[in-house]
């Protein structure tokens, strides 16, 4: 067995590598099975006595396999990757603008955070501020759950569009929606992380 026998001439995308359609719902046990099957074939441990070229190729191909598995296993990472693949999103893009409908709440939150930092520095009264922030944190946690549900719904729409062989315009509309939700999610998550950090 050589790496070459399982290699393909062009770099394949993660969906192709796992031989799954470009859909957002993926059967995890089937994905794992495929991962293990390919690991047997590609892992560098199988090529310790092979030529340097084959060792190099095994390293490249097995790292691609592991990278692909890591992305596809993660429900959010999977959406990001799909959008990058479809040219709807740049790699590593995380828009940090506050979604307009959240502006007021974010503004209030940031104010409370500033107050907390000041109070910490001047050893002022923390208890009431903390209570306010905990309440805000809970509020944004709920929003995170909400956006996750919306993301799931949009993902279902995407899969349905693929199944129905929908028009490019329809697909594009769903992707725009997915991208919006991803940005919103990333923004809220950062907020929650920041608040949690200040509270701890």
């Amino acid at each position, binding site marked *: *067995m050589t790496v070459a026998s399982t290699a393909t001439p062009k770099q394949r995308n993660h969906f192709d590598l796992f031989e799954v359609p470009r859909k957002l719902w993926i059967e995890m046990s089937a994905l794992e099975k495929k991962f*293990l*099957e390919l*690991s*047997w074939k590609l*892992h*560098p*441990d*199988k*090529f*310790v*006595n*092979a030529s340097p070229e084959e060792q190099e190729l095994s*390293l490249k191909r*097995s*790292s*691609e396999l*592991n*990278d692909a*598995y*890591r992305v596809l296993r993660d429900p959010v990472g999977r959406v990001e990757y799909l959008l990058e693949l479809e040219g709807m999103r740049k*790699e*590593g893009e995380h828009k940090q603008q506050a979604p307009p409908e959240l502006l007021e709440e974010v503004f209030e939150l940031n104010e409370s955070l500033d107050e907390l930092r000041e109070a910490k520095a001047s050893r002022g009264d923390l208890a009431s501020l903390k209570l306010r922030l905990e309440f805000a944190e809970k509020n944004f946690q709920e929003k995170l759950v909400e956006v996750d549900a919306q993301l799931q719904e949009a993902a279902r729409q995407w899969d349905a569009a693929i199944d129905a062989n929908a028009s490019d315009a329809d697909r594009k509309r769903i992707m725009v929606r997915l991208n919006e939700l991803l940005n919103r999610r990333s923004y809220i998550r950062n907020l929650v992380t920041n608040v949690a950090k200040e509270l701890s």
Partner: protein
Amino acid sequence: MARTVGIDLGTTNSLVAYVDPQTGTPKCIPGPSGSTLCPSVVSLDPDGSIIVGEPARRRLLTQPERTIYSVKRLMGRGVADIQDELKLFPFRIDPSSKNVIRVRLGDKFFTPPEISAFILRELRNWAEAYFGENVDRAVITVPAYFNDAQRQATKDAGKLAGLEVLRLVNEPTAAALAYGLHEKQRGHVGVHDLGGGTFDISVLKLISTSEGDIYQVLSTNGDTHLGGDDIDNLLQAFVHEKILQEHRVDFSPHSELAQELRQALIAIKHQLSENESATLRFPLPNGAVYVQEFERAAFEALIRPIVDRTMGPVRQALADAKLKPSEIDEIVLVGGATRTPLVRRTVQEYFDRKPHTELNPDEVVALGAAVQANILDRGVSNMLLLDVTPLSLGIETYGGAVAKVIPRNSTIPASAQEMYTTGVDNQTGIDIHVLQGERELAKDCRSLARFTLKVPPAPAGLSRIEVKFLIDANGILQVAAKDTRTGEQRTIEVQPSYGISDTEIERMLEESIEYAEQDFAERQAIEARTEAETILAATQKGLGTPQAASLPSEERAAIDAAVAALKESISGSDYKLIRKRIDELNNATMRLAELVMNSAVSTALQGRKLAEV
């Protein structure tokens, strides 16, 4: 044919193991003393030769200035990193050390990989003497939580010892491999590995597939500075303080007396694993004897903070594997420090199940390394290890923040591509800083490498350079860059922030010739000659005893002939011939040895009542 072995390069002890081709089971190789443990201690003799293992450990007491232990704590670390260690360990660091630390033994300086190489070389000698064959390839284990620099330093040590390092395997993973063979378990396995200087926790999934068994590491966590050494330090500080108070005797924590106290306390620690109490009697220079009774409960109260420190990494590893303690089917204890009853109890309570301790916790990592060495050596096997990188890999971005490109617990090999471009016209270089760690700011993470990407002069933003970061199956970083505009490929000479450069390694390899192994055959001949001299001396002594007179003349003639033949062979360098003649002399003196032995026994029994015997 050259052999491949597995080596556990430990903080306190190191071991070498192999898989017996007949039985297929892994086995640790004993050294000259018969023990499989080689204390990880190195001493520089005044005559310039290097002494390793038990003889070196004894010199900790007599020549502490020329002797070093626990050097693993220094591997891959910079001078700034080790200030805390210096308070606790008698490392004598070259004050002019810059990035790479140099340690003084007597009048010479060595880097930590060079010292580790002496240990590896010793183990290699053990294995070669055992097989009577050359050993040139090895799998070496490292703590799972070792970072890139620490791994690189270990690989360098292997190279300096003349070994091709087939793979660095994480210690808990190796232990799981040894246990998997032993127990035939399936499901989720936790490996709790508390060694002399490091703590690791790994969570694995054991999967049976049609092609064989897969050991998939789901997550790992740990502390590369937490282990049995810390218990010793704590005990030492405690007793030191009491001696100061009660006897007004003060001594430097790095003195010979301190070393003696440490050894005595290690013995107490071991006793407390078996017994409920132990008594320290320590003679002081002023003639007084310090006596301290240790109860296990008090000992446990003293060391509880250390044991508790293992639980943070345990919780994190489970969270990363998305498992609850109750979802761990088996928990395995590894490392000498897990003999401590408090450690066992703490683990048992947290996971609510009895941990596995069937395999010798000192040997299990080496046994697993041997299994992996065997798998790799053959290339094809019905077993596969899928390990992870313990720490996230990141790149410094604006404002000193870190962008993570490969998250921790990613299966390795793993890679990430990043695209870079220029910010101003005719910019000729882009600075890249690679880091490892979980913190958000570059200054809080471990700096792995800094380098400058050269770009041809062009208007800003025109150049596009794709940089590929790849963590290989050893957990070591490789970097390659491609100019996507010109298609030019470049491998980047990554100057490790705290490592030794390749040119330095080459220089050390050349310099190490004075300590370098002689040719394999020559080394074997030296060992065979030493053995021959021992047996010749013993024969001489035997022939001088009264019992020798009772030997029949033909037996006496046979012994004389065998002695002459052996003497003749040791003037040459054919070690096989020397071994053969040793065997022949052994056979010829069998009866003489028996006579001498019986007489010795009866002499020893003389004057004692039969009932006492």
